[in-house]
């Protein structure tokens, strides 16, 4: 009885929604068939009932050309050279929605301008203004960054190497800090598309940091100003910038900075190298990545703590909270196996490992923090990226979603 009642209800409910010839016939056929056949048909009827509003929505979207109108909502002009995009902020302990403004035809109609502001959370904000000017094989850019994090979690305990500095720890001795930082960096050099890309950069920075809660003896708490510069070299010998399956690429930087008052200073070296090894079939690739970043005191001046390199989910150790490991140096590796599952979609399994250290001699495999997981990446023909990652590290499982545009 209950089943028959359900069938009756379904047939009555679907009457007014039928509109396409197929739907009309389905309703008529359903109502005219003997009981057993009607019983077998009711799942289809219910599916089509649920489908009807979706169909109407799709038809409406197609009739009014909704995707084009939606795309135009992100542009300020009909030529689609200036517009805005939503952004996700990776700064501090917060993450949230933000805004990116861009203009591809700024500066005599051949330079790109980009302005980004992200209100990551109630406590954190991140803003960046960038101007790029390409000439043939050269490019110059200026980045003005303002970063404010009201809460940075740091794990304050001297590193095992006993340097008295650093936060490389798996312990629970956590401190909270706040940082407000302005930084200007000007780069000039050869464009990566033209081959190996050497370049020079200059930077100026002003930061105010303070401890939330009990004070801790950290270098650079309070106000710090830095002036400096350095050199950078990048190269890309991979077969595809967006979806590499073969080759290698990487970059390295060397930076010197000091405060005008002579209290703080550092020498910084950073490098990332990626290699891609094609496997038995197209699209199946093993990717290996090595990261290295190291701050050293400069002429007796100590580096401010907020410039210490970090190992966390945004810096080579997926699955770990933001700011999890921070010390004078970090070393990390990644191994990924990537394979295509559909057009534009790749699945990958990864293993991340890394260590923050006060002295290079403290590097040891037994102190590596590891995480492993799976991820799904979508890369459209127009350079839109969607990344879903599920990872598992010592703190437990983590999940990350990222959306962006390949520039």
């Amino acid at each position, binding site marked *: 009885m209950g089943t028959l009642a359900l069938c009756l209800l379904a047939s009555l409910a679907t009457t007014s929604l039928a509109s396409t*010839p197929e739907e009309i016939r389905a309703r008529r056929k359903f109502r005219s068939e003997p009981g057993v056949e009607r019983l077998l048909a009711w799942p*289809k009827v219910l599916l089509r009932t649920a489908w009807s509003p979706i*169909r109407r929505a799709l038809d409406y979207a197609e009739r009014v*050309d909704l995707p084009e109108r939606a795309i135009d909502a992100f542009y300020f002009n009909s030529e689609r050279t200036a517009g805005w995009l939503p952004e996700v902020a990776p700064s501090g302990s917060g993450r949230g929605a933000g805004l990116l403004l861009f203009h591809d035809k700024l500066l005599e109609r051949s330079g790109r301008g980009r302005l980004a502001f992200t209100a990551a959370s109630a406590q954190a904000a991140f803003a960046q203004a960038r101007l790029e000017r390409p000439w043939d094989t050269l490019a110059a850019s200026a980045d003005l960054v303002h970063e404010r994090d009201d809460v940075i979690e740091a794990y304050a305990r001297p590193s095992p190497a006993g340097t008295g500095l650093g936060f490389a720890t798996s312990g629970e001795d956590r401190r909270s800090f706040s940082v407000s930082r302005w930084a200007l960096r000007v780069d000039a050099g050869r464009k990566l598309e033209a081959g190996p890309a050497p370049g020079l950069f200059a930077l100026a920075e002003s930061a105010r940091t303070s401890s939330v809660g009990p004070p801790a003896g950290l270098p650079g708490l309070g106000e710090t100003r830095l002036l400096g510069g350095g050199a950078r070299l990048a190269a890309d010998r991979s077969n595809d910038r967006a979806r590499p399956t073969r080759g290698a690429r990487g970059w390295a930087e060397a930076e010197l900075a000091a405060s005008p008052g002579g209290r703080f200073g550092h020498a910084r070296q950073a490098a990332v190298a990626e290699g891609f090894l094609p*496997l*038995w079939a197209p699209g199946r690739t093993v990717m290996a990545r090595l990261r290295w970043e190291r701050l050293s005191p400069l002429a007796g001046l100590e580096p401010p703590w907020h410039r210490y390199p970090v190992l966390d989910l945004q810096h080579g150790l997926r699955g770990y909270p933001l700011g999890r490991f921070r010390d004078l140096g970090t070393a990390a590796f990644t191994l990924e196996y990537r394979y*295509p599952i559909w*057009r534009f979609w790749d*699945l990958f399994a990864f293993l991340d490992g890394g260590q923050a250290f006060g002295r290079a001699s403290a590097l040891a495999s037994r102190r590596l923090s590891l995480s492993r997981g799976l991820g799904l990446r979508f890369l459209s023909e127009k350079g839109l990226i969607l990344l879903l990652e599920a990872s598992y590290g010592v703190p437990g499982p983590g999940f990350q979603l990222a959306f962006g545009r390949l520039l």
Partner: protein
Amino acid sequence: MIPAWLLAAALAFGQERDNDDFDIPEPAPDQQAAMIWSNGAYLMSLHQAEKAVDPLWLLRKARLMAKPEARNVTALDETPDSTWFTNRHGLRRLSPEELLAGPGGAAPRPPLTVVEANPRSENVRFVVLDASGRRWYVKLDPPGRPGLATNGELIVSRILHAAGYNVPSFFPLRLERGSFRLAAGATIQGRYKGQRRPMNDGDLEALLLLAARAHDGRFPAAASLALEGKPKGPFRYLGTRPDDPNDTVRHEDRRELRAYQVLCAWVNNADSRQGNTLDLYVEESGRRFLRHYLLDFSASFGSGNDEPKAPEEGHDYYFDPAQVLRSALGLGARVRPWEREAAPDYPELGPFRAEGFEPRSWKPSFANPSFERLTPADGYWGARLATAFSDRDLEAVASVGYFPTPGASERLLEVLKQRRDSIGRYWLGGNAVAPLEAFAVEGSTLAFADLGVERGHAEARSTLYRWGARISARPAFELPPAFSGALELRVSRDLGRSWGRRVLVRVDGGRVVMLRH
């Protein structure tokens, strides 16, 4: 000299027509059938989900029940002429001139006066009036690839017309800038679909910049004559049209629509969705009814319309959840044939190959309900159409294309022939179907023809025929005196080691009265 089997088939076929051209009231256009997104999404999602809750489909999938046979076939397993299909080359071989002529008519006479432009349609499309006032649809090629899209239209339309389908008449053109004039009041598609605005010379120049040019600077183009009649929207591959009383057979049960899969597989027309069909309300012999057309063949061979085909086209649906899951769980170990090696890519042809072509598992970009219900009898019928084209026939139809790159036309012919032969080997030369035709009772002998052998897809010396316990090395069996009844015949291509699917023949009064493959 017409082969005996053809003559017999012609006589047996006689003057059969489907009588689906009775006068009917003018139907309203089916706007919903023309919607691409909802119909594509339906086929990719709901249509697949419906199968999972359909006990009959599940039984067929488990091979516990056979697919229903086509319902618009005659007693002798032929498809009668109708508003959907007209038996031509498969029944009476057309001459190379007739193949080349296609549906016929005269080519457009320049200058062409542009009345409409649709820049967001795939390839550059103009609606023009020629010098004699006839209305044409002109398609150009994507930049750098003259011939890529237009070759499909020109060649495949001729193949399908010869096979028997209703298609527009396409003509090759080489146009210059001066061939185009702008009509007063010409319109162009606006920023969004459904919007139109007045068209100016700047628009025309901008559109022509997006079109491919031949070496001499002219634009290769394909022009199709506007069909006479009132367009009433596409026809669906599922169900019937409720406002057409002549439409009594569900489309997914029509043989010519099911067997269209074989021809699409042959020419790699992956865009065989309902949006590329047309119901036209015509008036003929004082009667008004719907005639059903196939349209848009520019995504044939290696063409993806405005770019070369992606390698997976023809192998997978545009989105196939089952394949995605298999690929994901397989951890990349499973390598599809098209992943291994790229096909040679001629600009005017795209990557078109015969290696890795499997006639039965070929898929269009969107699921097609008629294709899904293809039975062995339907596939055999479609293969008969495809294998009716000899090498010379293919050379004739291919001559209408534009192939500036040395070796491209040879490549097209080579691949077409190899794919045709693959179809022939599968449907006519294997165990899928007993390809026996032209049954006739001659005295006390039942004689028939083996299409697999006759068309070179099977070896006569390794072929045997079986009726019950009787086995014969030649296509004939002695019948008992005054025999009336049904015979189940089977074919073996390996001297009796294995036997294929049966063909059912009924003899009554010294005549074959029924045939079922």
